[in-house]
């Protein structure tokens, strides 16, 4: 016989009590109240010849009742009567979630994670269903449920352990909330597939750092029957400082010494405060030039401006020294390069002529730290060097062109470029015909009675899309004194983007090959209209530049795991390759819009043939916040709180006790024992009553002298 609560057997010691009471009763039974005992000499109790124990049967019954009660409370059961636990009844559904984010690269964490996972896997019963997920940005199955079930029962744990051993932590930031939801839903799916009951558990093996993202848990209703057990890992070195790039301030181009700004953040539980920052020759190499000493108290961050080097080729990474953990100590930098390009202006007006279109155009073109666009003016009859013609992206034509120049421009349009045709008079109709390669293109000078206005505008078109908001869509304040009338219907594929209030087309887009011609049928110069002096002019010029593909540029800074969007300016085509930091190169398919393979930090080189772009990919800033999460944070987000699972020996003991509990619950021997106790007590009460009545008849009255 076994006992579920053997310590209750100690209660059987209480049988001593009735024996003692039976003995004590001998001396306390006869009592006499007396006025004063001050004159009574105390006597020694008389010894009787009888046994000191009276009412042996009563005593036995009382001892028996106590013994049975103690036995019942000890919850006895017979172990060999219990059948072996069936696999299905207690089979668990388990998801083991292993953190593989960059912060797990800290010393000892990954080994600890693998050891914990192996411990859990070894305690898995043969009927249990397990899947192992690795998570960083997203959770992905390392061993799916199907793979687990397909493997032989004896090899399942070994399979999962070997796969875990073959992998390692990545460089991505983690999204713990999403991972938990994925795991919970994986359990819910298996639940729908099979109705078999059994506990469902998620084992979370993670360093549970403060930078973990949990916000998605807020909107998730955590299933009640899924238990979350947290295996919290603790790093050997608490000190961790991180390095992140910070955006330039708005006045960056006015700085005397150009610099790159980086933020040095120190974890709250760090033991160190003094760090050094500077350009590094390699991720783990020496500083180039003098480093900057930075003092960052634990839990705080400092922004440091690292001056740019004279040699731009050496500026690849800024490194942090003085930290115990170096996974986030390198910021890969692609220094911004100021792009310069030009638009060609064909017109008869001089640059200083404040009545001419060029005067206003030059002042509307951008010139800032990232981009400088210059208007290069040519006389309409002048010949243009082919190189300049090729390099320019946008062309403005305001006066009749020489035929060869018009043909050259047409060639550029056919190659995909944009020509803005804004004739100052109807005399340019021939140029329009040459540009469009049509016969009989006719322009007619129109002179409205007072003034004309822009009437119908197509805000869907990219040119006017920036004005689509009703705040900016009012063009009625621009008065137009004169314009050129064009029969757009006669031009094939012409699309009227804006009309004058009289119904004549104002802006017409005519596709030419891969490019386009935009016919602006009124000039922006004050002789034609008030457009140049209105608030719409500069945005309109930027729209034109954007339409010509001159503004958008490949972004250069991303985090590990980001899908890097490839801008049209990059010109991805057949043969475009990406060179990874580890030296490997992959080819991108034609028409690819993004590149998702940036899974390690470093400088990626996007090579499109004619051009190449450097893209810096860095570890997410949240990975540097390695101080542990508050213990109740998962509960606050709705997931059940962290519960440290018992170790393997304890689990085995629990298993044994669980089986014992089952057997005890089935046999319920305590009921019989309780019944026997009650029976003994009933008999004892009856016997005691009978004895008392008998002795009551014979006993003298208390306090009465005989």
């Amino acid at each position: 016989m076994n006992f579920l609560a053997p310590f209750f057997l100690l209660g059987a010691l209480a049988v001593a009590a009735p024996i003692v009471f039976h003995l004590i009763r001998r001396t306390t039974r006869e009592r006499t109240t007396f006025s004063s005992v001050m004159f009574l000499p105390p006597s020694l109790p008389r010894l009787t010849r009888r046994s000191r124990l009276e009412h042996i049967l009563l005593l036995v019954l009382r001892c028996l009742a106590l013994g049975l009660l103690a036995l019942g409370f000890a919850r006895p059961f017979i172990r060999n009567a219990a059948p072996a636990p069936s696999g299905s009844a207690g089979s668990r559904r388990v998801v083991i979630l292993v953190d593989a984010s960059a912060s797990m690269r800290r010393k000892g964490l990954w080994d600890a994670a693998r050891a914990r996972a192996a411990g859990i896997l070894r305690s898995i019963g043969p009927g249990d269903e397990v899947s192992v997920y690795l998570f960083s940005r997203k959770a992905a199955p390392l061993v799916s449920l199907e793979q687990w079930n397909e493997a032989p029962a004896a090899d399942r744990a070994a399979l999962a352990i070997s796969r875990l051993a073959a992998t390692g932590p990545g460089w991505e930031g983690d999204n713990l909330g999403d991972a938990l939801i994925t795991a919970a839903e994986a359990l819910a799916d298996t639940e729908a597939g099979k109705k078999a009951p059994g506990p469902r558990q998620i084992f979370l093996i993670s360093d549970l750092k403060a930078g973990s993202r949990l916000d998605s848990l807020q909107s998730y209703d955590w299933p009640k029957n899924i238990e979350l057990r947290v295996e919290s890992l603790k790093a050997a070195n608490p000190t961790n400082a991180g390095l992140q790039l910070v955006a330039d301030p708005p006045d960056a181009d006015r700085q005397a010494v150009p610099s790159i700004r980086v933020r040095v953040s120190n974890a709250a539980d760090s033991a160190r405060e003094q760090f050094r920052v500077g350009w590094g020759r390699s991720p783990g190499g020496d500083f180039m030039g003098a480093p900057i000493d930075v003092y960052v108290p634990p839990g705080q961050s400092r922004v440091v401006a690292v001056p740019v080097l004279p040699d731009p080729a050496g500026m690849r990474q800024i490194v942090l020294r003085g930290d115990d953990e170096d996974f986030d100590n390198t910021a890969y930098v692609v220094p911004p390069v100021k792009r310069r390009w030009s638009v060609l202006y064909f017109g008869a007006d001089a640059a200083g002529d404040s009545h001419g279109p060029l005067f206003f155009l030059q002042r509307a073109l951008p010139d800032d730290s990232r981009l400088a666009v210059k208007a290069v003016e040519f006389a309409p009859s002048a010949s243009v060097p082919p190189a300049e013609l090729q390099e320019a992206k946008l062309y403005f034509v305001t006066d009749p062109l020489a035929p060869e120049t018009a043909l050259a421009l047409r060639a550029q349009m056919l190659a995909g470029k944009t020509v803005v045709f804004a004739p100052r008079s109807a005399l340019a109709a021939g140029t329009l015909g040459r540009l469009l390669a049509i016969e009989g293109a006719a322009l007619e000078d129109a002179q409205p009675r007072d003034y004309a206005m822009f009437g119908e505008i197509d805000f869907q078109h990219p040119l006017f899309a920036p004005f689509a908001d009703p705040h900016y869509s009012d063009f009625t304040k621009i008065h137009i004194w004169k314009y050129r009338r064009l029969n757009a219907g006669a031009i094939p594929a012409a699309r009227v983007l804006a009309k004058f209030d009289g119904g004549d087309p104002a802006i017409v887009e005519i596709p030419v090959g891969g490019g386009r011609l935009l016919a602006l049928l009124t000039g922006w110069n004050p002789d034609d209209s008030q457009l140049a002096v209105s608030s719409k002019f500069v945005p309109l010029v930027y729209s034109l530049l954007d339409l010509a593909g001159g503004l958008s540029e490949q972004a250069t800074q991303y985090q590990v795991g980001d899908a890097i969007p490839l801008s049209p300016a990059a010109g991805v085509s057949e043969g475009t390759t990406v060179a990874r930091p580890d030296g490997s190169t992959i080819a991108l398919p034609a028409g690819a819009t993004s590149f998702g393979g940036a899974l390690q930090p470093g400088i990626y080189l996007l090579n499109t043939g004619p051009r190449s772009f450097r893209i810096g990919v860095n570890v997410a800033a949240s990975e540097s916040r390695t101080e542990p999460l508050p213990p109740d944070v998962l509960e606050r987000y709705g997931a059940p709180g962290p519960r440290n699972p018992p170790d393997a020996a304890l689990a085995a003991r629990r298993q044994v006790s669980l089986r014992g509990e089952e057997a005890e619950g089935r046999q319920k021997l305590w009921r019989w024992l309780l019944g026997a106790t009650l029976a003994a007590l009933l008999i004892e009460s009856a016997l005691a009553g009978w004895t008392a009545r008998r002795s009551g008849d014979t006993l003298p009255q208390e306090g009465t002298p005989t």
Partner: protein
Amino acid sequence: MIGTSDSSQLRSAALIDPKALMSIRDLELRARVVVEGFWNGLHRSPHHGFSVEFTEYRQYTPGDDPRYVDWRVFARSDRYFIKKFQDETNLRCHMLFDQSRSMGYGSAGYSKAQYAATLAATLAYFLHSQGDATGLLTFDEAVREYLPARHRAGHLRQLMLALEKPPGGRSTNLADPTGRIAALVRKRGLIAYISDFLAPLDRLESGLMSLTACGHEVTVFQVLDPAELTLDFGQASLFEDMESARRVYIDPAAARPEYVSRIEAHCAAVRSICERLGIGHHRVSTEQPLELALFEFLKERLQRGRWSPAAARNRP
């Protein structure tokens, strides 16, 4: 006159069995029964009236009340004399009544407290019927209640109610009540001390001395149960003190000789204290008829010359 012949006459008269007397629930009725029976034994006198006893003449001194000048003597002797009387009706009797728990003991079907209350009530009724004022002070470990000596309607009833209160307290303090009554009663009077005196006697003598020093006439009634005197119990048992709840295992057969000698020594000590102070001591057993106690009391008074049967007969 009551003399020795009278006492034999009393004894021969039908005395009331205390057991029968105690079966009467009303204390006042019990007292009346005793007193009436007592008077019957004395052959009640047919004379009625009010009387004062002349004691002596004294030379008048200025300041004396001229009302008490005996003008007849003045006529005869031409001198002023003041006539002095013994004011019998102004006798003030105070009873010190023990209400400690030890008084609650009784082996005869009634307790010592009941018996003592009847004794006190009898005295009170007797004195009241003579026109004397009676007061009461009850005590246990401390003084419980004090009723000043009065003679008026309703006072006797109050007295009875106070006497009927159940015993209490955890001990008996024999000295404090004497000190308290000495402080409260300035005028000389009669003090009847009714108790079992089953308590240490160390301060009793000084207490009683303070009463006699004040000029009070003190009479002690020591009320004891017969079982307390003989320890007539059968088998050995735990004896529990009624006051202190102390328990002592006693085999009565073995303890009896020593106990009897101790209790007798104690009673003798009480008696010797009383004798030293000239105080009457009456050991009253609860199986003894109450009339005998009353008779002893009156006999003592008579011996001291403080009471005359003639005056008693003149009761209203």
